[in-house]
């Protein structure tokens, strides 16, 4: 009782899962220190920025998946949805020659609509999220290829498109810190989503659904509608991911996307969000995404073979979840 009074007085943003995040954060710091000692090339500004840049797309997708996972669901379609949105941007900007802003908005709306579809399958048609989003994943992969004619769409006619991700507003103000806009966008998206999760009705129902959906329904809440909204929001965020990757490559690559969903889910899990729903944090997910990027980058700097990097990432996921379980069993 006294315990919970003290901790619960802390702000909503830190309340539960603080320990998980501390653990994840500590691992991140340990990795950074470890790699710096192992290689002088690691702790360079340019390398740090490369890590952040590499985090941006996976980070945005992971934020989207976090929402769905907290409801007790899963979204396997985030990777191909990202690609689909990039293709839509390509169609609007390159094929139709519309202005930049319209392309961006179109991509985000396309993402939200696709999310709404997944949400409808799950909420209204009661298809398990794993199956519903697996289906969406394939549908979107196919559609991307169909719409683009299986060829990349380049954004050469839209000057400034590549700056969305690769330009650096911060760098213009603080020249020695050229943090790319993509990273800035990731942090904005994360902050906004964290706000929605912790301070709005939508966020409250996200946690409530994952905690005990039947109880929420019996309380008179239209659970189906809220679930659809949550999936739609996640889809919209994937749309932003699509813009980021297209901008970084200055093209929409229709065959890209598969595998991104697993990377995103891995980041979420490393960040301490429970796959059974009801609890999780955006900050944790961000740290999870950073850990994955640091790991990949650090191992590359140490010239570890690509194959081994994958092995290590897998091991880290299992370790992270196991550490979390051990902690939870102790406190229970």
């Amino acid at each position, binding site marked *: *009782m006294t315990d*919970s*009074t003290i901790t*619960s*007085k802390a702000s*909503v943003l830190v309340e*539960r899962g603080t320990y998980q995040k501390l653990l994840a954060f500590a691992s991140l710091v340990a990795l950074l220190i470890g790699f710096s000692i192992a290689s002088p090339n690691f702790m360079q500004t340019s390398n740090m920025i490369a890590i952040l840049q590499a985090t941006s797309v996976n980070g945005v997708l992971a934020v989207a998946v976090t929402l769905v996972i907290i409801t007790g669901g899963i979204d396997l379609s985030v990777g191909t949805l990202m690609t689909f949105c990039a293709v839509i941007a390509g169609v609007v900007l390159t094929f139709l020659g519309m202005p930049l802003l319209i392309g961006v908005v179109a991509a985000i709306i396309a993402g939200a609509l696709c999310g709404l579809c997944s949400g409808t399958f799950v909420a209204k048609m009661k298809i398990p999220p794993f199956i519903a989003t697996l289906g969406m994943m394939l549908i979107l992969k196919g559609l991307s290829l169909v719409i683009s004619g299986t060829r990349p769409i380049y954004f050469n006619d839209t000057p400034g498109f590549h700056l969305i991700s690769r330009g650096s507003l911060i760098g213009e103000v603080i020249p020695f810190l050229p943090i790319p806009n993509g990273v800035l966008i990731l942090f904005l998206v994360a902050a906004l989503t964290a706000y929605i999760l912790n*301070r*709005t*009705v*939508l*966020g*409250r129902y996200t*946690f*409530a659904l*994952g*905690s*005990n959906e*039947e*109880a*929420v*329904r*019996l*309380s*008179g*809440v*239209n659970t189906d509608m809220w679930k659809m909204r949550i999936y739609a929001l996640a889809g919209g965020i994937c749309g932003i991911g699509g813009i980021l990757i297209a901008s970084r490559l200055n093209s929409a690559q229709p065959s890209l996307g598969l595998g991104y969903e697993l990377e995103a889910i891995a980041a979420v899990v490393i960040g301490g969000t429970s796959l059974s729903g*009801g*609890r999780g944090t955006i900050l944790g997910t961000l740290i999870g995404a950073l850990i994955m990027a640091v790991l990949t980058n650090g191992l590359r700097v140490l010239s570890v073979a690509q194959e081994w990097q994958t092995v290590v990432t897998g091991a880290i996921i299992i370790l992270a979840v196991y550490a979390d379980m051990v902690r939870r069993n102790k406190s229970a």
Partner: protein
Amino acid sequence: MTRLVDMKGIEKKFPGVHALKNVQFDLKSGEVHALMGENGAGKSTLMKILSGIYQRDGGELLIGGQEANPVSPREAQALGIGIIHQELSLMNDLTAAQNIFIGREPRRSFGRLDEAALNARTAEIFASMNLDLDPTAVVGDLTIAKQQMIEIAKALSYRSNVLIMDEPTAALNDAEIAELFVIIRRLRDEGVGITYISHKMDELKQIADRVTVMRDGEYVGTVVAADTPLSQIIAMMVGREVKEVPVVAPDLSDAEVSLEVTNLSRGKDIQDVSFSVRKGEILGFAGLMGAGRTEVARAIFGADPRDGGEIRVHGRLVDIRSPADAVNVGIGYLSEDRKHFGLATGMNVRDNIALADMRSFTGMGGILDDDGMAATARNYIDQLGIRTPSEVQEVRLLSGGNQQKVVIAKWLLRDCDVLIFDEPTRGIDVGAKSEIYKLLEVLADQGKTIVVISSELPEIMRLSHRIAVMCEGRLTGILPGGEETTQEDIMHLATQRAAAMQVTGTH
């Protein structure tokens, strides 16, 4: 008095079960109307129809004199009907305040939540209930009793003029029940109509104005509580007289000590607890909620680690580190929260019972003996009077009390020598209760060792050959069973706090 609710000729069928047959029920403003009946009589189903969770198949429902047909909980709420469900339906990861106002959270623009108002309003409700609870406490971390109080607070927050309470006191201790009754009386005086479902007969006289009895989905009758003796109500419920014989403790001085616990301790929860039970004995554990009785049982069973202490089974020192170890040395534990730890509710009755002892139903090459499992299941269905259309009914579709009987069946099947029952009759009706009492006595007679944890003093006194009493993690005394021990003796020990402690007569 005006009629808030009028239900006539209500019919409800589920696949294989005719749950309600021509049932009637009415509720006036400013009364507490108790709804009584054995497990599976249809009480919860009737109230779920009133609160929009189920739709009736036939009959008439008037709310406030108007024909009504609520098709969702929300519509029923709009008609002024609030319900506290039998099964706790809370979101464990959310705080108390977030739970109470789910679906109606105070909002600011753009769907932003007004957390401060949320907590303030919750604090107000808690204050009006005289409940000392932090609105920001996470529900999953609270005791079952506290969670139950949150359910009640939630129903109160709707300001409903019809309030349905489905077994609200099942997990509450006497002090908490008293608080709840104060709240109920206040609401009644404000003109709220309250439907009260409970299996605790002694509560009727304290709180109910009228009593409606149901049996097997049928309406039996409605009587005025004050003029009707309990025995008559019980007879209406079970269709026969239930006689309770007082316990006579057998002389077991020659019997072998089958379970001996010495200096068991874990942190603050269990402080240096020592006791022993003999073969054929029923040892009751009394105490207030949170006294540490469940903790002791779990520590013995290996479900929780212990800091220190020794356990001897049949005189042999055993090292129990997990429930599997405990079962191997012949200790069984029937947990307090059966739903969570005791049942696979999506599976059927037969498979749930058989799960306890899969090995004896496994033939050559791991093939399961379905017929054997079914026969065993039917045997227990008869023995315990489990009300189910067949042994292949899914457990989640059984009424609350019948689910609990399935768990008891599991442990009986496992055939342990030492059986620890934690609140074995919570949510079980009077008829079934006395069956279970008899069953425990038969088991003891057959030479099993029985430990019963119960918060209901009458139950402890009815069953126990000896009564161990706990308070705040300490064993404050062991009293003899039978007529020489009074409720006051037990309460005295149950409230004996650390400073005044002195162990009274051990065996």
